[in-house]
């Protein structure tokens, strides 16, 4: 066991059991999966992405490039989870990934031997030709060999949420700087949110042996968190990663609500995606330690020095028995001293520098630690690290170690500061990039700003927190920062051991080596963005947190440029991966988007309706009856019943816009191609609206209810769009017009009653005294009335079906009662409810255009409405509709089609070519837009857009449908198949 007997911030009274690759292991509450594996002496955790090299745990945080595991089982199995961020829970199941048949013996490790062939650009160069082989051979093979974990194929059983939060100051990171920033802002009175990705707040205060205000760092952190949590103006989010900065002070954050449990609590989500709107933010995300590049630097047992320190101090887990340190800075020395003080064996501290602060060297000597100044690790050996070779002035020496802590210096975690296009700036004295221009309202504090000392972090946090609050008008003299010491932090830039042997990794997760960077340089991919894409450096799920700076430093050296000149790649959200389910939140499955029922939904359900989604609406598609074999039989029956006697359908989904005001008539004249100012009160007129570019936008009927009162209907699909268009016309184009628009779509239930017996049925539900005669309420008449004993109603004598028809509108709550009353009244007439399929059949039989014809590419002339357009007025779209190309008579125009054999089925989407011509694009003369089996005619019919269609009645064409294999000879006819003179409408 590598667990120390005492110490650490784990709860030894709460042992937990878990498994890794089927092995049962034990840990404690407060462990991460990584710390528990280390405590169980598990060093080999996974295989690398490309070369299948054995890998261990490198870091102790979200920057981890190596220790990716499959977490959970069954539907909850999640691949590529960083063991270093997984909070241990009882019963946790984890498995290594990207190995076969086992982690210890992986057949694909052959890739490592092929590594000389598989370098940067290999795929680009090798698999370019032939193209087909790529799809069929190379890609499947590569996908099997290279890769990450396996996702569960079952539906995700957990719930996810999105939520919004607002604050004055958002503090990102709860280390020393973040805690002080949050405290300073909060004490000044600002509304503060403090978020940290860890489950234990405090950052490095929990990982290093330090004192703040005379108490242990971890205790100081716990007290500061407790104070913040107790304040009413502060919200503290642990397990919450702020992953992105967006425009206007919006921050994306992912709260892992239930990831530390075997499954989320009942009724709680697994994760919650926060949109935090913050007036100011303080980024206090700390810094990430960089590896040094040398041969075999990826071997299990090689670990970031600070990670060793974290496992030792926070988790009381010793990562190895004999540990050497290899560094270019002072920080690693303190790690070595911590190990020695905890009773660990430090084989040597190897520093590339020849001079190191005497305080460090003296303390090391006092503890009996061997010091190798001016030394470099040149190679390593062992599947799990067994030994390293160190080169010094005196020659090369082999050291037996099973642990090597490395530190190439620190990169401030400035990612979020770069999300808004900000470019970082290079600072030579700390050999690191620091934030340049940060997003508006974002301040950077502590190590994230390149201030690495503890005292500096605390002071910077206080200052930035107070500054953020002060900007917002919260004035309070900030408290003096807590007492602490600034540790020695000298660093000498050093990236790569030049004389090393073996693969020397820059990007562990994507297996990018120093040699790959050399290849990129040699082949001209020298710009940082090219380097990234050619080698895939920094493109893995860790986004190169540990590798980017090293990679571009190596490139800078090869190109003979400074790092500042070389520049950094662009930072983009998310900082760490976010599950797509979190972005979807509540909107999954049936809740993907709202479902809008019609006012008669329950009635239709009782009638046995089959429903269909039309936009957000759920409408009755057809009403099957016992014995009917398929939908076509039901639809045919519904059409026949309506045409023979009477039928009804809910038409509430059409957009209904109430227009009132002095100028409504004039306004309608400007938005419709035809005239509405002359429409008599009590009349309805069909109208066409164009877009400003001259194409048809929408159609519908508008009724005049009073001198200054009209009611417009739009198509279901365009209801919101037309309302928006009309508002645009009124607010932007013609604000002088007195027109008030109100959407009344939701207020009214509207039922269309159609068929020769419609009047008889309507008479039974209408209140006494309403004259329904053809003279009193003729075709295209409208009036108010009451139905069912006093329910206010509006009657419109309009018809989409082509039969004698009425639309009856009542307040929505009465919709169901009206449907029932009509059914009751129509019982003697075999009344049939019909759905949108029958509606569509009847409109095609009548040649009425709908969505497939109003496709945004047709003009009023194309659709046969040329004569409707008024020449006496200006209206939207008129000027552009007059363009010569839109007046070209050769444009496809509306025509009807029937199969010559009267038997074949027609297909919408079929293209027309002349008889005898091949079905090729150069012979294309138009396409079929809508088809139906016509119960009235007993064969299939279609509407279509055909070049000069309206002039070619009687001609025959091919209707080709290569996709579905159809090739039908059709006869061109009038688009009106039933009652061409409209006699049935006017009876």
């Amino acid at each position, binding site marked *: 066991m590598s667990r120390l007997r005492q110490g650490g911030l784990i709860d030894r009274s709460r042992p937990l059991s878990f498994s890794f690759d089927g092995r049962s292991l034990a840990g404690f509450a407060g462990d991460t999966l990584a710390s528990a594996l280390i405590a169980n002496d598990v060093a080999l955790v996974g295989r690398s992405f490309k070369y299948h090299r054995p890998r261990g745990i490198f870091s102790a945080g979200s920057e981890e490039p190596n220790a990716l595991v499959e977490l959970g089982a069954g539907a909850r199995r999640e691949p590529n989870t960083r063991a270093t961020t997984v909070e241990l829970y009882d019963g946790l199941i984890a498995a290594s990934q990207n190995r076969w048949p086992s982690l210890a013996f992986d057949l694909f490790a052959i890739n490592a031997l092929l590594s000389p062939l598989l370098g940067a650009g290999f795929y680009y160069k090798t698999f370019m030709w032939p193209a087909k082989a790529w799809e069929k051979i190379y890609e499947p093979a590569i996908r099997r060999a290279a890769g990450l974990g396996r996702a569960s194929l079952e539906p995700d059983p957990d719930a996810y949420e999105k939520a*919004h939060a607002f604050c004055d100051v958002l503090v990102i990171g709860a280390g020393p700087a973040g805690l002080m920033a949050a405290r300073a802002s909060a004490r000044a009175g600002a509304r503060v949110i403090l978020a940290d990705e860890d489950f234990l707040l405090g950052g490095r205060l929990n990982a290093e042996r330090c004192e703040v205000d005379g108490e242990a760092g971890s205790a100081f952190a716990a007290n500061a968190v407790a104070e913040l949590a107790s304040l009413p103006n502060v919200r503290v989010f642990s397990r919450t990663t702020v992953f992105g900065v967006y425009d206007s002070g919006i921050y994306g954050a992912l709260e892992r609500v239930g990831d530390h449990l075997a499954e989320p609590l009942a009724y709680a989500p697994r994760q919650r995606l926060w949109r935090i709107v913050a007036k100011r933010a303080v980024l206090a995300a700390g810094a990430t330690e960089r590896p040094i590049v040398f041969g075999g630097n990826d071997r299990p047992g090689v670990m970031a020095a600070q990670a060793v320190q974290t496992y030792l101090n926070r988790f009381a887990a010793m990562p190895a028995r004999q540990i050497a340190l290899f560094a270019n800075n002072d920080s690693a020395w303190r790690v070595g001293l911590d190990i020695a003080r905890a009773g660990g064996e430090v084989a040597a501290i190897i520093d590339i520098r020849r001079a190191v602060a005497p305080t460090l060297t003296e303390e090391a000597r006092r503890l009996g630690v061997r010091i190798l100044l001016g030394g470099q690790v040149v190679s390593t050996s062992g599947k799990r690290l067994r030994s390293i070779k160190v080169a010094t002035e005196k020659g090369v020496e082999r050291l037996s170690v099973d642990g090597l802590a490395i530190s190439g210096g620190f990169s401030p975690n400035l990612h979020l500061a770069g999300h808004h296009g900000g470019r970082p700036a290079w600072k030579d004295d700390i050999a690191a990039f620091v934030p340049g221009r940060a997003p508006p309202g974002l301040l950077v504090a502590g190590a994230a700003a390149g201030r690495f000392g503890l005292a500096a972090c605390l002071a910077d946090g206080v200052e930035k927190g107070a500054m953020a609050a002060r900007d917002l008008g919260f004035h309070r003299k900030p408290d003096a920062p807590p007492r602490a010491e600034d540790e020695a932090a000298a660093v000498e830039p050093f990236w790569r051991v030049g004389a090393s042997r073996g693969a020397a990794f820059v990007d562990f997760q994507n297996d990018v080596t120093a040699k790959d960077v050399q290849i990129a340089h040699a082949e001209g991919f020298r710009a940082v963005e090219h380097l990234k894409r050619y080698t895939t450096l920094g493109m893995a799920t860790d986004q190169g947190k540990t590798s980017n700076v090293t990679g571009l430093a190596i490139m800078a050296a090869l190109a003979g440029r400074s790092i500042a000149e070389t520049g950094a790649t662009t930072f983009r959200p998310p900082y760490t991966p976010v599950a797509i389910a979190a972005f979807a939140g509540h909107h999954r*499955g*049936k*809740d993907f988007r*709202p479902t809008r029922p019609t006012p008669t939904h329950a009635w239709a359900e009782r009638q046995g309706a089959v429903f269909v989604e039309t936009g957000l609406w759920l409408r009755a598609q057809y009403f099957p009856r016992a014995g009917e074999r398929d939908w076509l039989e039901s639809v045919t029956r519904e059409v026949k019943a309506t045409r023979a006697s009477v039928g009804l359908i809910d038409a509430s989904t059409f957009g209904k816009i109430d227009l*009132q005001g002095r100028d409504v008539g004039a306004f309608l004249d400007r938005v419709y191609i035809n005239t509405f100012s002359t429409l008599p009160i009590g009349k309805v007129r069909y109208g066409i609206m164009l877009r400003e570019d001259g194409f048809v936008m929408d159609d519908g009927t508008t009724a005049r209810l009073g001198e200054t009162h009209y009611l417009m209907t739009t198509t279901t699909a365009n209801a919101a769009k037309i309302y928006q268009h009309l508002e645009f016309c009124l607010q932007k184009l013609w604000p002088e017009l007195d027109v008030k628009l109100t959407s009344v779509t*939701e*207020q009214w239930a509207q039922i269309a009653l159609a068929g020769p017996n419609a009047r008889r049925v309507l008479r039974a539900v209408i209140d006494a005294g309403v004259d329904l005669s053809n003279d009193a309420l003729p075709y295209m008449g409208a009036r108010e009335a009451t139905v069912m004993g006093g329910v206010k109603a509006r009657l419109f004598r309009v018809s989409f079906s082509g039969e004698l028809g009425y639309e009856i509108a009542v*307040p929505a709550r009465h919709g169901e009662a009206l449907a029932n009353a009509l059914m009751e009244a129509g019982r003697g007439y075999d009344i049939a409810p019909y759905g949108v399929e029958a509606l569509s059949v009847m409109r095609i039989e009548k040649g009425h255009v709908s969505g497939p014809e109003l496709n945004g590419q047709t003009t009023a002339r194309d659709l046969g409405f040329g004569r409707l357009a008024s020449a006496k007025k200006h209206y939207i779209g008129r000027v552009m509709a007059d363009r010569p190309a839109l007046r070209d008579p050769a444009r496809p125009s509306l025509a009807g089609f029937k199969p010559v054999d009267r038997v074949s089925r027609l297909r919408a989407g079929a293209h027309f070519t002349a008889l005898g011509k091949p079905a090729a694009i150069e012979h294309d003369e138009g396409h079929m837009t809508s088809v139906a089996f016509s119960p009235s005619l007993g064969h299939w019919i279609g509407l279509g857009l055909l070049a000069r269609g309206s002039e070619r009645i009687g001609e025959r064409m091919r209707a080709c449908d290569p996709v579905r294999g159809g090739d039908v000879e059709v006869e061109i006819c009038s688009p009106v198949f039933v009652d061409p003179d409209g006699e049935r409408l006017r009876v």
Partner: protein
Amino acid sequence: MFDFLTRFPPALVIPPGRYGAAGAGVIATRIEGLEIASLAAAPDRIEELRGRCRADFGLDLPAGPRRAAGEDVEFIGVGPGRWLALGGEGLEERLRSRLSPAAAICDQSDGLILFDLTGPRLRDTLAKGLAIDIDPSVFRPGDAATTAVALIGVTFWLLDEKPTFRFAVPRSYAPAFSRFLVASAAEFGCVVS
């Protein structure tokens, strides 16, 4: 998605009952019996309309997204020159007789469904759908907002400091609204009455 939600068809308002965890973190009550009408005034008639409201209802029409409540009628600002009016029976006629033609008046009693929402965890629940700040220090009783919650256009206002929020939801969106509400309040315990 929570399993219990899948029991209910998406076209139906979640029926009365207790959902989710034990307790009553959120209580939702459908309000019936109030009539609703929309008012729209041309920019040059707004002052006239204001005067009539003051004379006939003793109320100052709010100039922004606020609520002005009298004994038998209340007005909620929903846009420049636009208000929702709520009141007892005969509201539309009362408004029409006093305010027409300074305003276009449309009955919306059937177009909007009213829900009163309250409970100790209501703000936490609403934060899951509302993208506006409803912190008590910012959104005070009498404040109103027209916005979207879970892709649904709503108008709501704060009645009191308990807090009780009244939501006006378009009729056809009431099922989706109720599903959002119950799903979001489930962890706190949700009572639909």
